[in-house]
């Protein structure tokens, strides 16, 4: 049977997220409880979390989380990493035994800074250099998969139910200001750790529920710019779209959201001239980045949290706020289980992305 990356596998899902807009950090226990409530939306073939603000002591280093299938894969990949980066820390990611999670690969993390000589030779900035190295490892190093590569953030994922994955990685011991979570229901896969969500690149992380019908149009667009969609998953291509639009084209996150979940022409035709010009330009130039088909997506980043829904609102996504915290989940009950009395609750609308910016003070 073909595994993820060799074949495109559609899947359904549960997603959840919590952010504290002041940057106050809190343990993973909250997000685990939230995603656990939606147990039936996943089938045990993938669960994962992204956490922002967990590595303040290594805030200037890229934190690479890597799966290795074999000792040989690890040696080859480490040779590349040590050659291209100055690695401060190399260690296994702590885990504990959980009966339902088996066949774990070798899971390690590295805190590293780009090798400046090589970076200058390549004529790239730090982010581009790092992104290219990550894409190269994932495309070319058999048996090695970098599943997290941001600064002061990390993804944790596995084949299993999300609450078990949280226990496996002991996420109650980490503190983050932004958590996202995912429970997966793939329709046809042997289950592969790398295929679980969130998918990440640099500081971007995506959890996603849906199956995008524009996949190959999006993939073939983004692959023009040096990305390689090895996993053939929606999350991967959506992550790359955000990375490309925001990092390479310098667009704001909300503009990128307007590209991925653009309003319909019928609506645009009725807008004020300025707005019409704005959306017409976006749709004309970035039509291939329009994401089509049912989806709800939560994008985590160091700028804050963005939630978007498909234009026809074919997938559920509820938002709520209370105090400094904002909550998102596929089902409202998954919010109320961790925040019983929210101040405001609403369904994210198809053409209206929700962006919760982070208001970190300078010192952070």
């Amino acid at each position: 049977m073909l595994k993820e990356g060799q074949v495109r596998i559609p899947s359904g899902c549960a997603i959840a997220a919590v952010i504290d807009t002041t940057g106050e950090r809190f343990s993973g226990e909250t997000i685990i409880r939230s995603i656990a409530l939606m147990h039936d939306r996943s089938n045990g073939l993938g669960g994962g979390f992204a956490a922002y603000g967990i590595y303040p002591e290594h805030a200037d280093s890229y934190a690479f989380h890597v799966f290795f299938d074999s000792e040989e894969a690890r040696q080859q990949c480490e040779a590349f990493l040590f050659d291209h980066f100055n690695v401060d820390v190399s260690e296994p990611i702590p885990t504990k035994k959980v009966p339902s999670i088996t066949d774990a690969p070798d899971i390690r993390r590295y805190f590293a800074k780009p090798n400046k000589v090589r970076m200058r030779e390549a004529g790239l900035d730090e982010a581009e250099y790092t992104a290219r190295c990550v894409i190269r490892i994932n495309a070319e190093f058999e048996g090695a998969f970098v599943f997290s590569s941001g600064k002061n953030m990390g993804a944790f994922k596995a084949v299993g139910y999300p609450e078990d994955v949280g226990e496996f990685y002991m996420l109650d011991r980490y503190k983050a200001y932004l958590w996202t979570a995912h429970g997966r229901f793939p329709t046809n896969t042997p289950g592969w750790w790398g295929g679980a969500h969130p998918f990440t690149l640099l500081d971007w992380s995506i959890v996603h529920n849906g199956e995008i019908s524009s996949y190959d149009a999006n993939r073939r667009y983004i692959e023009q710019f040096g990305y390689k969609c090895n996993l053939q998953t929606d999350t991967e291509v959506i992550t790359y779209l955000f990375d490309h639009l925001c990092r390479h084209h310098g667009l704001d996150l909300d503009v990128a959201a307007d590209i991925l979940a653009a309003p319909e022409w019928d609506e645009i035709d009725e807008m004020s001239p300025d707005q019409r010009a704005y959306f017409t330009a976006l749709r004309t130039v970035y039509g291939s980045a329009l994401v089509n088909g049912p989806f709800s997506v939560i994008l985590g980043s160091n700028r804050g949290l963005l939630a978007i829904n498909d234009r026809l609102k074919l997938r559920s996504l509820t938002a709520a706020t209370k105090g400094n915290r904002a909550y998102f989940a596929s089902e409202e009950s998954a919010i109320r289980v961790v925040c019983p009395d929210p101040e405001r609750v609403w369904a994210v609308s198809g053409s209206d992305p929700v962006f919760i910016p982070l208001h970190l003070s300078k010192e952070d």
Partner: protein
Amino acid sequence: MMRYFQPEFHIVRDPARCIHCGCCVRQCANECHYFDEDGKTVLCRDESCVSCQRCVCLCPTGALRIEKFKSDYRESAVWTQQVQKEICRQASTGGTLLSAMGNPKPYPIYWDHMLLNASQVTNPSIDPLREPMEIRTFLGRKPDRLSFTKDKKLLTEMPPQIKLETPILFSAMSFGSISLNAHRALSAAAKELGTLFNTGEGGLHPDLHDMGQYAVVQVASGRFGVHKDYLNNSAFIEIKIGQGAKPGIGGHLPGEKVNVEVSNARMIPVGSDAISPAPHHDIYSIEDLRQLIWSLKEVTEGKKPVCVKIAAVHNCAAIVSGVARAGADIIAIDGFRGGTGAAPTRIRDNVGIPIELALASADQRLRDEGIRSRVSLLAAGPTRNAADVVKAIALGADAVYIASAALIAIGCHMCQTCNTGRCNWGIATQREDLTRRLNPEIAKERLVNLVTAWNHEIKEMLGGMGINSLDSLRGNRLMLRGIGLTEKELSVLGIRHAGE
């Protein structure tokens, strides 16, 4: 003189049904039907019948039928009747064989070897009757990126974009090769449909001056009808390098078709042959093409996108890339089954490659070079129905050109003898008694109906795939699967086989 070959067709008149009204006699420009000496009894002869079906369609009692003329030769897979007839015809005339419309040979039609996807369970299909289904299409060079001010005002200067309400445009057919009434119909239909027609290389007739905004104005090697006002009175400009039906060959409109009207539109003397040379004699290289592109942009003050149309030939992917870098905003690729008003038979039947393969490789090449969004790709030659259009767009086309299908909608029966100028349907002729047969109002309605019907079907197929905007189908090759194709064909098309 003895004829060495049999007629192509046999006219069957059912005596029990013929009421001798004489409609067929008056309608056949090939004079296949005629009255007996009594002036009342209708007779017919087969020699010049081209099976245009005009008499069959108009006969009020259904008394007529056209058959293949059957006189069986001794069987040979090598020396078929067709091969022998062509030899005999050449032995009689000493000339190049001429024919019209597209390549009729049974080469593979890849459209028919590709199947479309539909959503089941994991992704809902969308009902186009309930939900908006967008097929609006923009043609023109797209900037690599956009930038905005903080309050979302556009800072990037946008190159001119052509807004179409359907991904279907009418392809190049010149006034001269087709009648003014046909041009009237095409232009009026384009206006109503929110799309464009194409002047071919025949210029724009003064009567259609107001339709310029719906016209793609062609600049071909003969430069007929080209002047500053013509170029500026357009939606966009198309430099015609080649045509799918006759790559590497120029055009020849015989002097007898150059009447006063044609001569005015083309700016040539009445009765003179209109010869389009094989190459543009000011384009012997890609850098020359660049100069022409930029001089056309200069004369239109950069307001008109410039398209370059090439025939699908063996290395067209590389050519397309070069043309994109030379500054073209739109590139049209015309496949070897594309139509024509006249082409040497040998060229029509043997030169060029199928549009499906050319389009797939050109789109991939542009993506490999990261310049796909710099140009819009138009596929032509031919798309026969809405499914072909959807497949072309999934392979990577921005829109398609249709010509043969448009002509069929208004009466053409593909008799492949446009070159004779005796089109009984009033399309490919300048004879006044014949052009009158094409009522532009009826023809316009039929063209509008055709494209409207295809639009509905495109939306239906999009909805089935769970897509509600054509943008998301463009280049979306996962929506295609090959059926009955070799590994090599699949790899050129960039698609997987059904079941994979």
